[in-house]
């Protein structure tokens, strides 16, 4: 599983190997958040394989998970 941090989250420590018990976005956020509590904030959104995720979503080995802080385009 590939984990990406964008914007100000890019300063966070990279994620190590994900434990086998982490099988959805909610569990992934909780696991990463133990060392990186800013990821638990509701303003941080998640995209899986280039699609925004609302609520919880199951994760597979090959998935790419992106953590997105509030955006500032334009």
């Amino acid at each position, binding site marked *: 599983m590939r984990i*990406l941090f*964008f*914007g*100000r989250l*890019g300063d966070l420590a990279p994620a190590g190997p994900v434990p086998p018990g982490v099988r959805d976005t909610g569990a992934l956020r909780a696991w990463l958040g133990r060392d990186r509590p800013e990821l638990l904030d509701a303003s941080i959104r998640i*995209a899986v394989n*280039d*699609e*925004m995720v609302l609520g919880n979503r199951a994760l597979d080995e090959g998935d790419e998970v*992106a953590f*997105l*802080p*509030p*955006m*500032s*385009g*334009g």
Partner: protein
Amino acid sequence: MIAVQAEPFEAAVLLADFSARAAGAGAIASFIGLVRGENDGALVSGLELDHHPRLTERTIEAIAADAAARFDLIDVAIVHRHGALAPGEAIVFVAAAAPHRRAAFDAVDYVMDRLKTEAPFWKREQRSDGAHWLEARDSDHADRRRWEAEPR
């Protein structure tokens, strides 16, 4: 004309191209967003635009399609930079061509509001007082909510 690119662009050249292809338009509205040389009283030496490449293109295409569905348009253009920008450089160019001016104005306004709040870009300003990540302002979110009602 939809593009997300690291290369600088000349907005006036984009407008010339866009206008030449907008046959039959009675109205062309456009917008250029530029890197300002100061913010909150601090000098800005540069702007770094982080982005999520594929999600960005997908989001911008969806915003352009939504604008075309919502307003009576002939064409719409969105060109957005990423990477390292200098003060005075254009960040974004948006244009809309329509039979009448209200649709053209509203479409550009709408696209900008959605880009500000939904397009996966993150801006870091290099200022005389350090580097600062920017986020959409409260007024950007308030502007975005103007479009949540049904189109008039």
